[in-house]
Every structure is written in C-alpha cells, then in structure tokens.
C-alpha cells in the first residue's frame, strides 16, 4: 500500500501552495495601492496567476480522482478523519470558487482578463457596477475563509508531525516518493 503521495500530487501541492501565498499577499497588497502603472501591472499579474491556478486545480482534481491518496492512519479517531476529509474538500471547493469569483468580478467590472496579455479569457458577465462591487466582496470573503482553512491545514499537519508523530506531513514532503 502506498504510504506516500505521488510525485505529481506533491509537485502540484507545493507549486500551488507557493502560488497561493504569492496570490494572497499580492491581492491584499495591491488592493490598497493608489492608482499607478505599478498597480495596474500587479492586477494583471494577479489575474494571470489566478487563471493559471484555476487551470492547475482541474489538473490536480483529475489526478486526485485517478490516484487514490494514502489512507489516513488507523489510529486517527473517526471524527478526526471526517474533519480531515471535510477540510480537504473545503480546500478544493475554495481553489475553484476563488479564481472563479475573481474572473466573474473582472467581467462585471468591465476589465476582461487577457492571459499573459495574449490570450483573452471570455467575459462571463456583462458590465455591471453593483454586481462588480458585490463580487469583489465575495472574492475577498472567500479568501478570508481560505486563509482560515489553510491555517487549519498547516496546523493539523504540524500537529500530526510533532504531537501524533505520524507520517501525515512527511508523506507530502519531497524525496520519499513512491511513484516510479
């Protein structure tokens, strides 16, 4: 039985983790900047990276469905196992909902997303100021929830490693991959 995540699953996990930290930091930073060429540039970068993670999450979801992850330790109480699954489900839902809300917000605000300045992503909504403002709230709120779930995710991983002393953390770390 596999005790490790596959190399692909690990790569996607850590690549996206780094991108989420960058996107979150950039998102909160650029939001409060006064209008400047820098600000417009950062918004474009944020949107390009957002489209990228939105594509990556579907790839990751496909991989997750076709590659069963290692089972949780039998020593874990049923309720905790359930909580772990619920947490991971929430992370997947947020990884889809957050870029989607950003895409919808950009459409409603009348600023189309052009991926890397080259590939135009279709607008999902017509321009609508009120809806744009509402979707900005949605995008921000979802991200605050995302941060809370990520904190829980990291906290749980550390608890497993340092308190329970099981392999929950190490099986996602690079270098022990079982994938041939």
């Amino acid at each position, binding site marked *: 039985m596999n005790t490790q995540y596959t190399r692909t699953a690990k790569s996607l996990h850590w690549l996206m983790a780094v991108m989420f930290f960058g996107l979150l930091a950039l998102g909160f930073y650029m939001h409060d900047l006064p*209008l400047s*060429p820098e600000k*417009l*540039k950062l918004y*474009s970068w944020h949107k390009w990276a957002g489209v990228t993670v939105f594509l990556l999450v579907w790839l990751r979801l496909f991989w997750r469905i076709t590659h069963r992850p290692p089972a949780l330790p039998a020593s874990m109480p049923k309720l905790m196992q359930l909580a772990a699954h619920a947490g991971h489900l929430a992370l997947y839902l947020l990884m889809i909902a957050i870029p989607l809300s950003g895409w919808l917000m950009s459409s409603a605000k009348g*600023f*189309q997303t*052009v991926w890397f300045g*080259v590939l135009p992503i279709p607008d999902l909504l017509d321009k609508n100021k009120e809806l744009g403002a509402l979707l900005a709230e949605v995008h921000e709120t979802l991200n605050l929830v995302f941060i809370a779930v990520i904190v829980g995710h990291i906290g749980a991983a550390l608890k497993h490693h340092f308190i329970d002393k099981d392999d929950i953390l190490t099986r996602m770390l690079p270098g022990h991959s079982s994938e041939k």
Partner: protein
Amino acid sequence: MKRIALTAVFFLATLVAALPAQATEYTQLQADKSAINFTYKQMGVAVEGKFKRFASQLSFDPAKPATAKATFDVELASVDTGAPEGDDEVAGKPWFNTKVFPSARFVSTGVKPLGGNKYEVAGQLSIKGKTQDVVVPATFTAQGKSGVFDGSFTIRRADFSIGEGSWAKFDIVANDVVIKFHITTNSK
C-alpha cells in the same frame, strides 16, 4: 377658373413640401441621442470609456457637404474611464489636467464626400493645449427629421501629452486610443 385655382394651390403645396427637403440643414445636436466613446488598451486588455457631456455647433446639408462645418467641445471632466478610480486619476495633471484644460475641441476644416453616405471630415483636434490635424471618416444617415453621424478614428495619447510621468510609457496603457462617435442632429 376653379381648375386653375386648384392647380395653383396644388403647385404651391408641392413647392412648400419640397422646400425643406431640398435644403435640409442639420444644425441641432441631440445630446441625449449622441455618444462619444473611446477604447484604450491596458496591458492587452481593451477597456471602454466615454464622455458624458459635450456640445457642438454644426451645420450639414447633404446636398452641399463642402460647406459643412462642425465644432465639438468635450467636457473632459465628464469622462467615464470604466473604473471610478480611473475617473479621478485622468482628470489630474498627468492626464487631462482638467483644471487648466477643461475641454477638448474639434474644429472641422473641410468635409469631403466619398460617395454614398461616406464622408471624410478633416479638422483640428485640440487637447491639453496641443493641436493636431486629424481626418475623421464618418457616415451620415438621414432618419426623418434627424441626421445621424457615425464613425471612429484613432489618436495617439502621447501627441497630446495625455498620461505623463510614470504613465508616459506605453507598456501599461497603450498609446493608441480609438474614439468612436454617434452624433444625432436635428434640422431646424
């Protein structure tokens, strides 16, 4: 006698009816049925904006296009850039500097018929103290009492120092700005 009188009345009536049709001169801007929009590119993204207030003195007689004249004054502070934050920004000094240069002005210097309903309007466009010659292609459509002009032309913002300082480079906001107009006029 009666027949002659009737004929005379008929003739006169025809003449009166034909008169305005012969000399229809469109002079009254219908601001609520007119629009001046523009499109600019921001890091490859086309963004649409518009000017909400503008005035015009014009006279256009389709039968005598060579004598046509048009002056447009666009209130630059009425700009809608598509983003509220942008509206305040472009009113400022690096962009329109509306405190010193409140309006943009277009004055026609000549109208050339291109056949059909197509015309070419040459004129001078002044924005922010800088004047450039522009050639504006336009189509004219008579709709009952109204005459409608449609067209678009491209200006380069740098020609008018629109977007100075940190905005002067074109990597974020492109140089080309497409101005699109839909002008409805009435005859008197």
